[in-house]
């Protein structure tokens, strides 16, 4: 697949698969966490944190991932970074399978893909000046002390912190927004091609959040990055994403271009999720919660469609068959109502909303 014609002179030399090869393909990713109990710590069950997740991230795009807390968003991020081992599934980075003999090595993957963590407090070593925290990655990958330090100071400048003022400071001397800028700088220190932003702006004040989002936009253009942007904040995802992926209980329920998902959500869960957003206009405030109850227990998820216990349109078919992600074109949804052959009474009809 790597034809590598490289006619365009501006092509990134690290680009192996070509313009149309997705940056990352995730296929059927699974992770079950064992639950141990009793005095002998035997396995008494497992949490199906991520159950058969497949998607791809195109080069240069921002893929937003939304869903309730506990739906497996962060687990997906950690699985992609190989911070926790996956039970099954395939990861293909720019055409190279991850973790296979002939594929890309973990070390190279980590040079190409980095992650920004949510908690800006615990994600920086309190005993290291921030420029040392940033320089650590390049040092690990063999950069000299002076080179790594210079790189760290350049990056501090790039994320809007003056290195001569902030470089020698410790994390506890910085504000939350500044710490998150440092986290972003650290993730960029290995000059990766893709960033996973796991709730990267969720802990920040709204005004600071806006600054950091603008910074992310600038960095994306400047370094030609690809983002996987995980958040529970629908407005932020709408602002930053090109495409959006909606997760529910460890599975993908809907994926598509951001406008298509936000204007015409097809899965009842996506519809409910979008309706639960706070309205800017107080006259449009919603009186009733569009979705009620807790997500079901991922230890023992419902049969068939996992959303059926909270879905207002659930029928017997939803109990029996697992809906597959399908749909013509770029907007895909996993719902029996979207599949005209499923036998659901509302099947084939356009979305209710």
């Amino acid at each position, binding site marked *: 697949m790597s034809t590598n014609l490289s006619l365009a002179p501006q092509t990134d030399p690290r680009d192996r698969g070509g313009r149309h090869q997705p940056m990352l393909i995730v296929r059927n990713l699974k992770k079950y966490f064992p639950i141990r109990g009793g005095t002998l710590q035997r396995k008494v069950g497992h949490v199906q944190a991520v159950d058969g997740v497949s998607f791809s991230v195109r080069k240069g795009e921002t893929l937003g991932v939304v869903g309730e807390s506990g739906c497996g968003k962060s687990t997906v991020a950690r699985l992609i*970074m190989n*911070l926790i081992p996956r039970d099954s599934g395939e990861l293909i980075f720019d055409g190279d399978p991850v973790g296979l003999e002939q594929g890309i090595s*973990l*070390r190279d993957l*980590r*040079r190409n893909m*980095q*992650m920004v*963590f*949510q*908690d800006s407090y*615990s*994600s*920086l*070593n*309190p*005993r*290291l*000046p921030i420029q040392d*925290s940033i320089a*650590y*990655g390049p040092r*690990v*990958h063999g950069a000299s002390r002076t080179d790594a330090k210079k790189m760290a100071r350049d990056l501090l400048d790039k994320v809007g912190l003056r290195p001569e*003022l902030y470089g*020698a*400071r*410790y994390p*506890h*001397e910085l504000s939350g927004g500044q710490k998150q800028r440092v*986290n972003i700088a*650290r*993730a960029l*220190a*290995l000059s990766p091609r893709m960033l996973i932003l796991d709730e990267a702006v969720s802990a920040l004040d709204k005004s600071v959040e806006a600054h950091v989002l603008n910074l992310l936009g600038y960095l994306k253009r400047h370094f030609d990055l690809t983002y996987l942007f995980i958040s529970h904040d629908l407005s932020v995802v709408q602002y930053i994403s090109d495409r959006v992926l909606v997760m529910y209980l460890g599975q993908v329920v809907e994926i598509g271009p951001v406008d298509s998902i936000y204007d015409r959500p097809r899965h009842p869960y996506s519809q409910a999720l979008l309706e639960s957003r706070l309205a800017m206009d107080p006259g449009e405030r919603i009186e009733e919660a569009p979705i009620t109850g807790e997500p079901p227990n991922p230890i023992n998820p419902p049969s068939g469609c996992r959303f059926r216990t909270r879905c207002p349109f659930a029928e017997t078919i939803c109990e029996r068959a697992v809906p597959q992600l399908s749909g013509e074109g770029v907007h895909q949804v996993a719902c029996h109502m979207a599949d005209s052959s499923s036998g659901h009474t509302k099947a084939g009809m356009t979305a209710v909303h």
Partner: protein
Amino acid sequence: MSNIAASASTLPSVTVAGAPPTVRGYWGTVAYRLRYDRVTLFFLAIIALIVLAAVFAPLLAPFDPTKSSMLYRLKPIGFKAFQLGTDELGRDMLSRLLWGGRTSLMMGLGPVVFATTIGGFLGVIAGFMGGKVNMAIMRTMDVFYAFPSVLLAVAISGTLGGGLRNGLLALTLVFIPSICRVAESATTQVRNLDFVEAARASGASTLSIIMHHVLGNVLAPVFIYASSLIAVSILLASGLSFLGLGVSPPTPDWGLMLSTLRSAIYVQPMVCALPGVMIFITSLSFNLVSDGLRRAMDVKA
């Protein structure tokens, strides 16, 4: 540790007036805070005095600490040339206290240094590896923990026999489990923080992560705890000598002196109390300095 070395070199520049107040390293901040802690500084000076006196004992001692004289037994403080009196065998108390400081300080610092090295290492390994390794190390420590420390020290040096080296060994073994536990809990806390995960995500090896990200955060609590153990160690060592399990006569040692002089407590109470006073002052100073260090090292306070 490299950051200690680095801080030592940056320390002078920190104290220079006009330097930007924000660029002060971690150890620089600690030193800065200690400068305004009068109590800690005072007791730090006392410790320095005691250590210097012990180091220069051969020069300072007016008499041979082991030379006895039947004529001048149990003389009071200030008797002729004996500024602090004489003991039950007519040996000069001042000389014996100076020389005894050497043994007592060695017994106080030695076991703590060894136990911090060994216990700290085991604790970091246990904490970072977790799972079965943690289980194996920490349950072994619990076995030692099950005995009261004094009893354990007495039992070990009783089995091994008296002598300075066996006393050191016994006390080291007594202190390892508690230091190991402090290091383990500190490591376990750090291990689960995102910056360790981020370091792993950057492709760092386990050893590199431990050296750069774990040790720096574990050092402070372990250091503070260990410094509080110095006083305990001096007391325990004195206790061992008192029981005849530590150093053997005629080697001067504060605990041993206290033990042999106790029969003369009604004859010369002031002289008999002197070794006890030295033990008291030394352990009190170490304790208070340890408290001061804890306050100074808690940077986020």
